[in-house]
């Protein structure tokens, strides 16, 4: 019986293991290996260069500026999706009559393609005839019409775009967590005359710790890996709007320096894994204390 099971297990798991192993694990391992070479991504055979790529990375100014930009918008993304989404969820949770409709409105943008969103924001933020500036000029606030795609506002435009497209997702996770709070906790607090802020502080927030953990880790990973959003928003991104992920793409595909690109990816991957593990550990202990 047991042997039959073992064989069956191999047969059942086989396709998944082969596909995933062959087309995700294998390239990933190869990728890591390439970071120690000077591979250009196609033609020429790579030569082993040891830690040369990593040394170069250490003094790469463009990498550092992309890192700074990435860190800035990651922090903003983190705050928005961990705390902003929580606030929105708490507000939406109190809606009883138009619950389905209102929640759908906030979730809908998540369902659209990134290309559609990028297009939309390109059209909205155009300085001359974009919708936002047209409205501002129309209602008599021409000085408020800014160069949204330009260097001063790029970070905020990106944040707006990212928030618009993904806020619904993170908010829904919080809403689901809020559903698990038993009614009697609310009733008890009502008897004591607690207002909504108090209810939030003492009942909702503590119960939301699991989702806070999840969302904080996810939003951090999301922020650091920001790549597609940059491409669809700016057809040819300016150097000051490079995120690390986009820089890797530039170096690798357009710059033909795959060895160097994968070296950067490796560093990012290690950093990410470390942050994620740290975060989960920190928040898990807090959870246990609850």
């Amino acid at each position, binding site marked *: *019986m047991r042997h*039959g*099971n*073992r064989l*069956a*297990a*191999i*047969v*059942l*798991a086989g396709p*998944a*293991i082969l*596909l*995933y192993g062959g087309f*995700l*694990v*294998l*390239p*990933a391992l*190869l*990728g*890591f290996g390439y970071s120690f070479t000077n591979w250009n*991504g*196609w033609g020429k055979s790579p030569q082993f260069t040891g830690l040369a790529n990593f040394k170069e990375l250490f003094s790469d100014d463009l990498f550092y500026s992309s890192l700074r930009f990435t860190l800035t918008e990651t922090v903003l993304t983190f705050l928005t999706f961990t705390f902003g989404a929580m606030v929105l969820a708490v*507000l*939406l949770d109190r*809606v*009883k009559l*138009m619950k389905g409709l*209102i929640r759908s*409105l906030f*979730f*809908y*943008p998540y*369902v659209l*393609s*990134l*290309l*559609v969103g990028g297009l939309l*924001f390109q059209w909205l933020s155009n300085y001359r*005839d*974009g*919708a936002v500036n047209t*409205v501002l000029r129309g209602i008599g606030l021409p000085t408020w019409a800014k160069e949204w795609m330009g260097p001063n506002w790029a970070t905020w435009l990106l944040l707006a775009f990212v928030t618009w497209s993904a806020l619904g*997702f993170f908010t829904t*996770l919080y809403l*689901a*967590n809020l*559903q698990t709070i038993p009614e009697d906790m609310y009733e008890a607090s009502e008897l004591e005359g607690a207002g909504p802020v108090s209810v939030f502080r003492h009942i909702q927030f503590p119960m939301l710790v*699991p989702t806070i953990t999840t969302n904080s880790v996810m939003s951090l*990973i999301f922020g650091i890996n920001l*790549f*597609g959003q940059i491409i669809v928003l700016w057809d040819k991104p300016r150097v000051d709007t490079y995120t690390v992920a986009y820089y890797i793409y530039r170096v*690798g595909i357009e710059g033909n320096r*795959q060895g160097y*690109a*994968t070296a950067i*990816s490796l560093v990012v*991957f290690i950093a*990410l894994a470390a942050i994620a593990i740290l975060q989960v550990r920190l928040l898990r202990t807090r959870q246990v204390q609850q």
Partner: protein
Amino acid sequence: MRRSKWQIPYEFALLVLGLAFVSPIVLIVLNSFKSLKEITAAPLGLPSHLAVTNYSDLFSKVDLGVPMLKSFGMTAITILCLVTFAPMAAYAMNRLGMAGARFWRNFFLIGLIVPFQIVMIPLLKEFRFLGIHYTYLSLLLVYVSGGLPLAIFIYSGFLSTVPKELDEAAVIDGCGPIATFWRIVFPLLKPCTVTIVIFWGLWVWNDFLSAFIFMGGTRGDLAFLRLFTLLQDKYVKDWGTIFAGVVVLSAPVTVLYLTMQRHLVKGLTAGAMK
């Protein structure tokens, strides 16, 4: 929660906020019915007349019909692969006492963290080596292999809600392990399968980046790639047609969303609760 007299104004305030949130989309729909001149002149007004030419152009000039079918096919096949291979693997690793099950489970978990950049180019090289680079098959492999870790994770979670006694009962009835899986366990995984269908239906159809990278830019004949070619017009972008394209390509996803809303949310939350 007791209803206070502020409940209705409160909900209306949030309703207005919600409508503002989706207003860009409404604008796009409105503008898809305008001619290009009208869009630049009055981006926020109602169309003076319904310029349906934007839509007919999509199928005559831009020829969006065929790429749409191809995207649909790509999505369908990806989903089919995922809803067979993933639950099979989840069952094998969690219930059949597979040799080294723990190792294999962790093996798949790593796939959830690996960033896309690392595998992007080596994968392209691998496809070139196999002679399938820039083909639909290669993109399909990317979607399925990339989706397996998460799909297996979701199925594994759901599998734990299926009682083991059913497996044992089937064995007593003389069912082999594979038959047990397909006849008894898999049907019980239906809610999970629905979730997977919805999520990947959404993701694969909407995907632009992976298609762009693995089909060699706009050489690939898929829906969103075709739309992207419209955006590359250096001089004057034909916004009217572009908006019409956006509406048409977003329609299936919107319909899916409106009908399957509850499932989407249920699926998301089930995964998050792990």
